[in-house]
């Protein structure tokens, strides 16, 4: 962590977070803190426990052990307060298929307590950030994958939350849209703590100030992208990722 960020408030505190499904341990004692201004790339192979960790952080899954706090609010004991300051994009960006984009975003804004002019402005702002202007009155089910993802993203940005947790925000987007989303994340980075999970390692290089690699539910690396690259002679994140996450034969 650069020294300038040391004074930023810690917005996400995860301590010993563990999730077991029967005898299978999906997430095993994951701990990390994230301060404002940090963009954390959450990496790992499929099934490593990325989504499970994010779901526990969002208060959707109940951890078997450990705690998670967002802006000081425990996600289990003070869930509503924690979720109020969190923008969460669930895996696959689920939305209600029969609702129009406007209706869906208005619903989310209402639940978040906005009314009247403020509500309209919030929705307009989120629509502008995610470039949804052209599809506002279309039912979500008629939209392309890229637009659906952006609707999910708009929902997470509505209330301009200090903490963003985005599960694969660029999955299904074309290269131009990916670039836009990365630019957007870059613009917001300074005043938020952002966690994104991704399979695209170049993304980590492009937007993240820090990367955590998780394999079989455990954190195997926690460093800046540059540091990680230095851990393999080739200097490529791909190689570092493979080295850390492929089980020795």
């Amino acid at each position: 962590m650069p020294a300038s960020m040391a004074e930023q408030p810690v917005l996400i505190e995860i301590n010993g977070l563990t999730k077991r499904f029967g005898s299978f341990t999906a997430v095993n004692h994951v701990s990390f803190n994230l301060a404002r201004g940090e963009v954390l790339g959450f990496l790992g192979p499929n099934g490593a426990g990325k989504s499970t960790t994010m779901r526990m952080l969002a208060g959707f899954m109940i951890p078997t052990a450990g705690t998670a706090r967002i802006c000081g609010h425990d996600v289990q004991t003070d869930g509503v307060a924690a979720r109020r300051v969190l923008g969460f994009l669930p895996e696959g960006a689920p939305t209600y298929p029969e609702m129009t984009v406007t209706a869906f975003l208005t619903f989310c804004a209402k639940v978040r307590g906005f009314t009247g002019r403020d509500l309209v402005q919030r929705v307009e702002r989120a629509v502008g950030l995610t470039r949804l202007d052209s599809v506002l009155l279309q039912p979500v089910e008629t939209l392309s994958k890229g637009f659906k993802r952006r609707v999910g993203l708009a929902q997470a940005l509505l209330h301009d939350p200090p903490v963003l947790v985005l599960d694969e925000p660029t999955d299904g987007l074309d290269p131009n849209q990916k670039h836009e989303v990365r630019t957007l994340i870059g613009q917001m980075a300074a005043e938020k703590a952002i966690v994104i999970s991704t399979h695209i390692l170049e993304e980590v290089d492009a937007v993240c100030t820090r990367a955590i690699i998780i394999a079989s539910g455990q954190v195997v690396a926690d460093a800046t992208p540059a540091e990680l690259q230095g851990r393999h002679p080739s200097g490529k994140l791909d190689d570092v990722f493979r080295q850390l996450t492929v089980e020795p034969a």
Partner: protein
Amino acid sequence: MRNVFIIAGRELAGYFATPVACVFIVIFLVLQGALTFNLGGFFDRGQADLNPFFTFIPWVFLLLVPAITMRLWAEERRLGTIELLLTLPITQTQAVLGKFLAAWVFCAIALVLTFPFVITVNILGNPDNGVIASGYVGSLLVAGAFLSVGAAMSALTKNQVIAFVLAVAVCFVFAVASYPVVTDFLSRNTPVLAEIARRIAVIDRYQDFTRGIVSVRDLIFFASFIGFWLFLNAVLIEQRKAD
């Protein structure tokens, strides 16, 4: 409370945005009409009341209400929207109440649309409209009772067919609990259970309403019945939301 209404509003709009509302209401009205006029012998009886109409209501609800509730949670699970809904700053109780309220209001709309029966009977004779009104109150409570059962069953599974079949089965048990077939069998073997069966029977309570009797006991029964199943619903969602 505000959140409950926001969720209920979204749900209710969802019914009307899909063919669900239209199909349900049309089938409900056609079934009620056919049963009342044909099987119920509405005209042949020569009496100015809606007894045949109210006799069939619980049985039509038994079939149709689980069709509304089967999607309540099962569909949210299938689409993954449950993850979105429950990570908004609302409590699970608010989500449970909102969904139930929307379904209940929807049933109330379907019931209101049976007004031609009331008009017909008022043109043909001089019915006791007080009895008709209490019959409607009873019908709405039966709908609420079945909805609360169905909602809890829907929370159990992500498969809508399973949710439907379970809801029909459980509602059926509560519907027929006071019928002689059940109570005779129970009193021969376990008299205690026979007494309990008679007390928890939804149809028995409902029949008081159709006779024009609105008693506090029956109202408390329905309130606690619905309350119990909604509580179970909330517990099931809490325990199994991510499954």
